[in-house]
């Protein structure tokens, strides 16, 4: 996938480089990359400095779902999606904290107090993990 690097901006004439990057952006638009089926709007993965907020990767969501199922002792075919709320799956507050701790261990991150309070669904957990893993 074409990546826009900051180093490419240091060219003799700025207007040329801007045109180049614009051409590259349009190049990205025409490239077809796998849409995982979650959203029909293709999300552009720009470079770190120009980060647009993207949805979490599917494998992250799957790992989160596996940890939730193990913690709440749900059967393997229980319907747990990105939108499931922990409370709806039968987790009390201590279970939620324990799930967050399990995610900390699995992904080797540390979740701040304020961020931990706001997690109520699987998708939010996956998004926060993505944000912390990238740091």
């Amino acid at each position, binding site marked *: 996938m074409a990546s826009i690097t900051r180093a490419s901006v240091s060219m003799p004439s700025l207007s040329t480089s801007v045109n180049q990057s614009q051409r590259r952006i349009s190049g990205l638009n025409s490239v077809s990359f796998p849409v995982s089926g979650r959203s029909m709007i293709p999300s552009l993965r720009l470079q770190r400095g120009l980060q647009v907020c993207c949805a979490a990767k599917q494998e992250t969501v799957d790992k989160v779902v596996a940890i939730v199922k*193990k913690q709440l002792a749900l059967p393997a075919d229980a319907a747990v999606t990105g939108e499931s709320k922990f409370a709806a799956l039968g987790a009390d*507050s*201590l279970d939620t904290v*324990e799930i967050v*701790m*399990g995610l900390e*261990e699995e992904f080797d991150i540390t979740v701040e107090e304020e961020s931990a309070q706001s997690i109520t669904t699987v998708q939010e957990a996956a998004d926060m993990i993505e944000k912390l893993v990238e740091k």
Partner: protein
Amino acid sequence: MGERAAAASLKFVTVQANSASLAEARARVFEFFKTTCRSIPTVMEIYNLQDVVNESQLRSAVSSEIRRHAHITNPKVIDMLLQKGTEELHNIVQHSKQRHHIIGQYVVGQRGLVHDLGTKDEGTSDFLKNFYKSNYF
């Protein structure tokens, strides 16, 4: 893992003031639980528990201990229990306890005989296992 251990450093354990309300006591319980969970890798390292138990089992042991007192509503009682829990955690992390204490209290816990994780005893017969357990089977 270095981040988590640093986040849970328990160098100085002081008595805190009483919590003003049940909500504050509740927040302190979660904070204590998080500190404990973040210290679990250190504990496993200190007492060489890698073959006996894994982290999530220790985590569920801790949470079941906390859940045993989940019905209490008096903030002062909760504070007292937290005080005892913090003291226990401090003792464990400072290596004041020994391996058999940890195994007996938190790995085997309320369950009885620990299921063998090693390959040594997997082939023995059920007769022998029952025999070791009790006289009557």
